[in-house]
């Protein structure tokens, strides 16, 4: 009797382990890129003799790469839907110029200037979306035209350069969240509270998701996998919290404002892409446009909306970049489109569309950012940095294609 009950229990246990392994194998590409990021971080941590992960260089890593992440969020959606946007770099220069002129020449308050800049981004998005979706000009051509036009217009309106005088505006890219909870030892209190809240939110949402799946009578992923995931993510959050809480200088420190902006955008857009009808439409259009049309999806509207989102995110990147450089120039945002596209492809977005995730693109952006930061700490020439970034991009996509070929 006892052996009869023990056997199925053992079998079930085995099944559980199997399904954990299978789930890992299914998402091998995603785990692979995260693993690659960890290896790269480790390598540079050693090569830079521990400078890379010093609190302040970690903060500047985020502040320097925020624009890539912001643009990659939109770019990954555009690429999933089989388009591309080459104009984002020029948009950063043009919208940055508009924003600077509003503040410095028209005397507009910095907050209003930001709002107007975002609206300009939306309007430009509508313009490009119109040509792609309703006239049928390929995105590559439309945005190549946009790349030339808006770089030209940026030069026309900005001239030499427009320096920013507003300290509040300049603070966006360099300041931290106010230190309202004071310092707890060497650590910023607010940052620690935020870190703990993140972990709590993570555990809560994961467990609630499980509960709801069980409630409707479906089988959730194995509990073991959920726990493993939660532990790994919690450790990562604790480590980042530690770095941030101990960052800064004598007057301020903790959580940089840029991180908050980027985090909010990543969360919101990840929600849009994974949980909304629009997100489903994006994947459907990218995976099989004909099938999407025959399933009743208004593919033209999807195309249009994607470029509107991209225009908006370009405007956000423009504001962040302007704040960081404290001066508008016609050369701002040069080659940003290439950084964003590279981040998407390193992060596992399929060249032919239909596949890709925002977390993947964010990790891709970090891979590029860490290589950039690590090499510049080591004092490597920027020309060489560029060469290495090119090789990394080629290697990541080659790995992707070869591993797919092996699978089939």
């Amino acid at each position, binding site marked *: 009797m006892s052996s009869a009950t023990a056997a199925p229990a053992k079998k079930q246990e085995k099944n559980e382990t199997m399904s954990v392994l299978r789930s890992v194998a299914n998402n091998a590409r995603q785990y692979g890129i995260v693993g690659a990021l960890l290896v790269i971080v480790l390598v540079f941590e050693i090569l830079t003799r521990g400078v890379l992960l010093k609190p302040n260089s970690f903060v500047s890593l985020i502040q320097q790469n925020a624009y890539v992440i912001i643009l990659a969020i939109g770019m990954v959606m555009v690429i999933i839907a089989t388009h591309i946007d080459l104009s984002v770099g020029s948009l950063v220069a043009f919208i940055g110029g508009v924003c600077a002129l509003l503040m410095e020449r028209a005397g507009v308050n910095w907050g209003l200037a930001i709002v107007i800049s975002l609206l300009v981004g939306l309007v430009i998005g509508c313009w490009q979306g119109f040509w792609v979706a309703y006239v049928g000009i390929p995105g590559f051509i439309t945005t190549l035209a946009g790349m030339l036009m808006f770089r030209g217009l940026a030069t026309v309106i900005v001239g030499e350069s427009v320096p920013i005088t507003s300290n509040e505006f300049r603070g966006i890219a360099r300041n931290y969240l106010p230190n309202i909870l004071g310092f707890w030892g060497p650590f910023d209190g607010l940052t620690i509270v935020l870190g703990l809240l993140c972990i709590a939110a993570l555990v809560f949402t994961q467990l609630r998701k499980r509960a709801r799946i069980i409630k409707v009578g479906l089988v959730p992923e194995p509990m073991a996998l959920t726990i493993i995931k939660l532990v790994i993510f919690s450790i990562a959050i604790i480590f980042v919290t530690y770095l941030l809480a101990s960052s800064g200088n004598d007057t301020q420190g903790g959580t940089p404002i840029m991180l908050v902006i980027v985090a909010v955008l990543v969360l919101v857009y990840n929600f849009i892409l994974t949980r*909304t009808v629009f997100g*489903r439409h994006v994947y459907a259009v990218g995976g*099989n446009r004909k*099938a999407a049309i025959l399933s*009743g999806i208004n593919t033209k509207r999807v195309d249009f909306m994607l470029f509107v989102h991209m225009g908006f995110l370009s405007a956000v990147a423009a504001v962040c970049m302007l704040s960081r450089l404290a001066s508008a120039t016609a050369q701002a945002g040069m080659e940003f489109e290439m950084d964003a596209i590279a981040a998407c492809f390193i992060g596992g977005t399929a060249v032919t569309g239909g596949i890709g995730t925002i977390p993947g693109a964010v990790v891709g952006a970090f891979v590029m950012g860490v290589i950039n930061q690590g090499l510049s700490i080591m004092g490597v020439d920027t020309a060489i940095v560029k060469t290495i970034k090119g090789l990394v991009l080629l290697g990541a996509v080659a790995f992707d294609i070869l591993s797919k070929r092996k699978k089939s």
Partner: protein
Amino acid sequence: MSQHTHEDARDVILTMDHIVKRFGPVTALSGVDLTVERGEIHAICGENGAGKSTLMNVLSGVYPYGSYEGTITFDGKVCKYKNINDSEADGIVVIHQELALSPFLSIAENLFIGNERSSHGVIDWDKTRAEAKKLLDRVGLPEDPDTKIMDIGVGKQQLVEIAKALSKNVKLLILDEPTAALNDEDSAHLLDLVRQLRDEHGVTSIIITHKLNEVAAIADNVTIIRDGATVGEMFITPETPLDQDELIRKMVGRELTNLYPHHPSNTPGEEFFRVENWTVHHPLDPNRVIVDHANIAVRSGEIVGLAGLMGAGRTEMAMSIFGKTYGSHISGDIYVKGKKVELPTVQDAIDAGLAYATEDRKVYGLNLLQNVRENASLASLKKMSKKGVMDDNIERKEAEKYRTEFNIKCRDIDVQVSTLSGGNQQKVVLAKWVISDPDILILDEPTRGIDVGAKYEIYEIIDQLADAGKAVIVISSELPELIGICDRIYTVSQGVVTDNVPRQGFTQEYLMRGMTKERQVAL
């Protein structure tokens, strides 16, 4: 013509002796014999999937010597072709249904593609043009050789293909459904040309066609293939014209077995769907009528078949109804539950209660990059969301429900559909449309390319849908299938609905007659 007297010893140019071709466990050809006389026009007839195209691929070396059994003798020599170049060197040229011309190059460039008129690697344009002009004269195409292929119609493109074959000193010309994409006038011209090539140049032709009137008009001899084997040969002379009934009998004469679930007809309920005077023109060539004043009606609980040969316009009819996804100059009226509706977009059609499960599930039906759940919900996202935000649990529940109900064999609903077998993929397509909760389902080739077991399951699903009071329209190229599952069948031939046959009138011969009825050219 005196060369068609069969009392004489036959001057044979080609014999294919007991050809057997297998693809893994599937036998595509199980013993085809073909004998073609020099200087004749030889028609090959058979149902869709009988093995006609496979046979031509064996002959032309697409399937190389050694990958099939049996012997081919051409011009007194045993053929051991390794590829198409070998067979072309012997003068065997195949013109496929999908033309192999490059649209952006000129006629002259296309004629000599891969066979350029050049000296030391430099193209001799004068020679190219002069020879092109000569070839075009031979096929009766008065076009400038510098005209781009994209600027001439399909009919003329077909002539360019023949001119290209002539440039290769063709002895045996094989035409696979040459008139399927042509209008009546172009078809007549093409057939005249084939006849002229025979009479003036002694070119032997094999013509594969579904249009029996063409066979009667042009062929000297017909070989009938069924289920991968030759079932008969029929000679045609002016004294003994083609007996089309006999030909049809030979094409379909297969025994029906119990491959279909027993399903007594429901008492038909309210009329759910009616189409009146539905006329559709070709999207690129508005002069070609694809669907011609079609009238069909389906009642609740009914399973109605649309039977027609390839190119009859069945899919085009369905797609033009379903949100105008095919065609141009569409006219006619659609009534859903007695109410006249306009369906300019797919969403309108879905909202009106229609569903259309497409013919080619990989090209039009599924997103192969996504999983079972995401594919199953694609036509119903509106219902599964609140203010644009998906309710994942409703989605999971629905997908899970139909995974169980339709017996979709996959580990769970998060498996990519590309890993499923054809039958299970088809069930996902059906689940997608059943989840959208339609009143009228149009199922286009619902069992194409799937195994017998899965077919049976799909028939059961179709029966269940009818029992649940849906109006079901099934489009299929397999007559036995329609006879096995339908309550009523419309026959379609060349865009015209030729007959409306109730269950007691189902015989393959009778239906095939409706499917091959000649179109009355209305002016």
